[in-house]
């Protein structure tokens, strides 16, 4: 029994990111990207080996996942475009983001949904990442609009995020282009 408070403390340390902000839910992001849409339909993608190879060739990056979360935006029957949801892990941070694609698969807009930094080591722990990944809407301990103050400091580059956008653009070219 005497260990209980300690356990509670360490569990809390695992779930509390150092700096974190929730900017948008997935629903808010799709609304922003396609304000004229009357319907949004999930169109999850599963890539086969040949498609993954093609994506790697186009983007110069590993295709990374077989399954991708895609939402189609429609006005009546007309396709307005797609939104692809993804999470990327940097050296120090985990970013959930959404990429809006036009029907010709060109990138329309990129919006960050959530941003989480770790105190250091936890970013590499699968358990730490698992509690946030895919929870771009409410969840992971933050609600929309919540977050810390602005941060000033040395600039943290976001290469992994721009790589992620490039990968999704290639997925769009191979899988979604009309």
């Amino acid at each position: 029994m005497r260990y209980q408070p300690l356990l509670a403390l360490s569990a809390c340390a695992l779930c509390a990111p150092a700096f974190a902000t929730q900017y948008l839910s997935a629903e808010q992001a799709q609304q922003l990207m396609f304000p004229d849409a009357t319907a949004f339909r999930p169109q999850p993608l599963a890539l086969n080996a040949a498609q993954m190879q093609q994506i790697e060739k186009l983007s110069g990056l590993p295709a990374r996942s077989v399954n991708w979360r895609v939402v189609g935006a429609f006005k009546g029957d007309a396709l307005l475009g797609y939104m692809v949801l993804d999470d990327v892990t940097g050296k120090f941070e985990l970013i959930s983001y959404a990429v809006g694609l036009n029907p010709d698969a060109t990138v329309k807009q990129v919006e960050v949904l959530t941003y989480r930094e770790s105190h250091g080591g936890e970013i590499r722990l699968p358990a730490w990442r698992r509690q946030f990944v895919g929870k771009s809407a409410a969840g992971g301990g933050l609600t929309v609009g919540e977050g810390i103050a602005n941060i000033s400091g040395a600039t943290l580059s976001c290469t992994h995020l721009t790589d992620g956008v490039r990968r999704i653009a290639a997925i769009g070219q191979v899988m979604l282009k009309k």
Partner: protein
Amino acid sequence: MIRRAQPWLGTLVEVSIGAMGGAAPDPQNPADLQAANQAINLAFARIGQVHRLMSFHDAASDVSRFNRADAGEMLAVDPHTWAVLELAQQIHDSSEGIFNIACAPRLVAWDCLPSPASVRPVYEPSAAVLRCEADGMVRKLAAGWIDLGGIAKGFAVDVAVEALRSAGVTGACVNAGGDLRVLGSEPWPVAIRDPLAPFRTAKTVQQGEGAMATSAAYFSAKRHIGQQVCALVDGRNGEPLPGSTSITVQAPRCAVADALTKVVVATADTQHPALEAWNATAFII
């Protein structure tokens, strides 16, 4: 507060709106939300434009066109690029050359930037590589590469703040990876990273109307062929500036604050004459 973030200029740029027409927008009110999002869209569009003009990585940018040009060539650049080059020259002159956009060959040599061409120019810190001429023209004076990574983020923040103002925003904060500017009289709390533990807050500052920029080596420091290097360079001699401190400069304009941080990083002098010349102040953590 209505707040969004997008990747631009190699970092995350955050736009937060606190007031429009003098009142706080209600995120639950569709009309407020739409007005705020339109203003944010405009701000990001302007930031995107600065990104495309001043990116070292994009072959079509004004910076890349300049870097590929031959010595003696005259180039027409966008008025934004011209304004940044002119401001960079002025800050260079008032800082005894410490702030120097012509350090790019050093950053390329350290693998902090990709090489824009196969033939690398000889790096001469004291030689001028360009001159701003009339009518938005720029003359390349000598072989060399420039990088606006030390000033363009600040400039983009300034441009975004003007866009927000023109869209009726009266309270906002635009933050490009730590270089930020507040619009309006209401102060915004800003957490400054602890240079010895960057994921913790060293201190919180109430930032009123004006700009703040912080520079430190903790995210870019690395070893390159046995030498400790980082993205901060002393423009006088091309030496890297990997210190363990964090420098914050406050100034009316973010481009100025951004550039002046390098002067204080190099000198550790919070009373450097360049600060007073630009109506800026600095502190070291």
